[in-house]
């Protein structure tokens, strides 16, 4: 197990290095002068010179990379070409909004997946199973930005129950925070819910066929107790890790949903960075998302190895 953990850690460090090279390359690959592109030709020469020096663009490229990497490792992701604020402070200011949206979306996904997946596994090839399969296929195919617009049309426009866009911090008004969160969370959670529904279904089906479940039934245990204590407990443990992967997808996948609902999260920040050609800001957000992705995948792999020792043995061989 220790060998497996060490191997996975080393692999992640190597991938992280590759990721950093690609993220660093963004600013190098922009045609022309990236600061001129961001500030325009009429920019104040002093601001231009200060930003150029701060970004170290006159240094040799390998030195620029080493400096950028050393900065990134200590949380210094440079300063925004547009606002002059540090990239880290802008990222930190937007993180709570994205975290709350991704967190709420995974709750929505689980609320869809656990009941629907379980019921369809308990009644395989029935109309319920057919409905679950169809709705999970539809959930995977529906464009989230379109679903968001339809929900706005229905719940904000026609019924007037919920706000169509915007964000209120939890600390200011928890009720208004929740009201603003409902539609974006449903929009973002549907596709993950569809993936998780398939997982829950196959996991529960597998669990239902196991010997200890048959034994529990043979001993006369009530069907509901068999389901709760023997089937779901076993089937849903791996769901924790799969939901973890989905959370990582959601953290980065809510980019377009944030755009639809004017949700001031990291996705919106990435779009603003692209629109204003603020490359340090873009580098910072892309790097953050990639690191989150890597860390979650690493944790999930290690958790799997812990739950199923065969994985680490197989990999060690």
């Amino acid at each position, binding site marked *: 197990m220790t060998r497996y953990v060490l191997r996975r850690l080393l*692999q992640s460090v*190597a*991938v*992280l290095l*590759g*990721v950093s090279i*690609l993220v660093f390359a*963004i600013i190098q*690959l*922009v045609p022309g002068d990236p600061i001129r592109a961001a500030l325009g030709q009429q920019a104040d020469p002093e601001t231009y010179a200060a930003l150029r020096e701060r970004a170290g663009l006159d240094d040799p490229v390998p030195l620029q990379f080493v400096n950028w990497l050393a900065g990134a490792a200590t949380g210094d992701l440079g300063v925004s070409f547009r606002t002059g604020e540090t990239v880290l402070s802008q990222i930190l200011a937007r993180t709570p909004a994205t975290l709350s949206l991704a967190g709420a979306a995974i709750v929505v996904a689980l609320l869809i997946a656990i009941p629907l997946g379980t019921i369809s596994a308990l009644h395989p090839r029935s109309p319920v199973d057919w409905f679950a399969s169809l709705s999970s*296929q*539809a959930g*995977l*195919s*529906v*464009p*989230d*930005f*379109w679903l968001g*617009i*339809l929900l*706005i*049309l229905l719940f904000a*426009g026609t019924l007037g129950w919920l706000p169509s866009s915007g964000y209120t911090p939890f600390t200011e008004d928890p009720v208004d925070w929740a009201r603003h969160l409902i539609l974006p969370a449903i929009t973002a959670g549907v596709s993950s819910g569809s*993936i*998780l529904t*398939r*997982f*829950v279904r*196959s*996991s529960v089906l597998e669990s239902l066929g196991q010997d200890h479940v048959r034994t529990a039934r043979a001993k006369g245990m009530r069907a509901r107790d068999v389901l709760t204590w023997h089937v779901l407990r076993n089937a849903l443990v*791996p769901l924790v890790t*799969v939901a973890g*992967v*989905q959370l990582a*997808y959601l953290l*980065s*996948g809510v*980019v*377009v949903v944030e*755009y*639809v609902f004017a949700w001031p999260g990291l996705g919106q920040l*990435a*779009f603003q*960075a*692209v629109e204003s*050609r603020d*490359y340090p800001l*873009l580098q910072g*957000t*892309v790097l953050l*998302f*990639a690191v989150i*992705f*890597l860390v979650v995948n690493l944790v999930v792999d290690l958790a799997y190895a812990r739950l199923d020792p065969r994985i680490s043995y197989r990999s060690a061989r």
Partner: protein
Amino acid sequence: MRGRETLALLFRSPTAIVAGAVLVALVVTAVLGDSLAPHDPTATDVSNRLQSPSTAHWFGTDELGRDVLSRVIEGAAVSLKVGAVAVGISLVAGVLIGLVAGYYGTWVDDVLMRLSDVLFAFPAMLMAIAVLAILGPGSTNAMIAIGIVYTPIFARITRASVLSVREEVYVRAARSAGAGDLRIVGRHVLPNVTAPIIVQTSISLAFAILSEAALSFVGLGTQPPDPSWGRMLSEGRGFIEQAWWMAVFPGLAIFVTVLAFNVLGDALRDVLDPRQRSAMAGTGVTP
């Protein structure tokens, strides 16, 4: 499995038949776009702006009086073209990388697979946005961006299949008969690893069309006046309360197309590669 057998098995699935019919209709629509469209998709008529669906304009008109149905029909060609070229890029690049990595193994495999891990570490949409930030917005650049994003998955799938095929008796026999690497890969390995690649192509087409629509929706993909479905949705969003049809119909077109590719991909997986279905179930792998 031969093509005819595959088709025979596919025809046993009613959902695959429906999905296939939808896609054939879509391709026909894309090819015959101009002659099928009841109106000129770019012709403006301000006196007829924001008209609700009627017999004259089945899907209504937009804020400039353009016929929404004609624009949805014209958008089919754009979406299919971007999706097909993007998947073509990732298919060629990914299969080539996977073949080389899987066939040669050793450090070549290590280097190529670590590079693919690096690309995999970026969330798909964000990666596409970053590529477009460098190349600039536009449908050609969107094809390249989406193509890059989906390359690693083709590389991994191909490599995994090549690893199991390269030790087969017929490959070893060809090698001992003196066949060169190119011949072995082209004649013996590639034909035996196509099943998962075909399945992945169908699923990737769905996600490529979805990605193009998302990029156009946020203004980074197809640019005006070309009527891309994502772009139309974005324009319709601003008029959602006065003219729901402007956003509903282009969105429906994306949804039906993506659903058809996904259903067909699933059916193909059942027929060609049933093992992959169980292996993929619940892994959270987004193709």
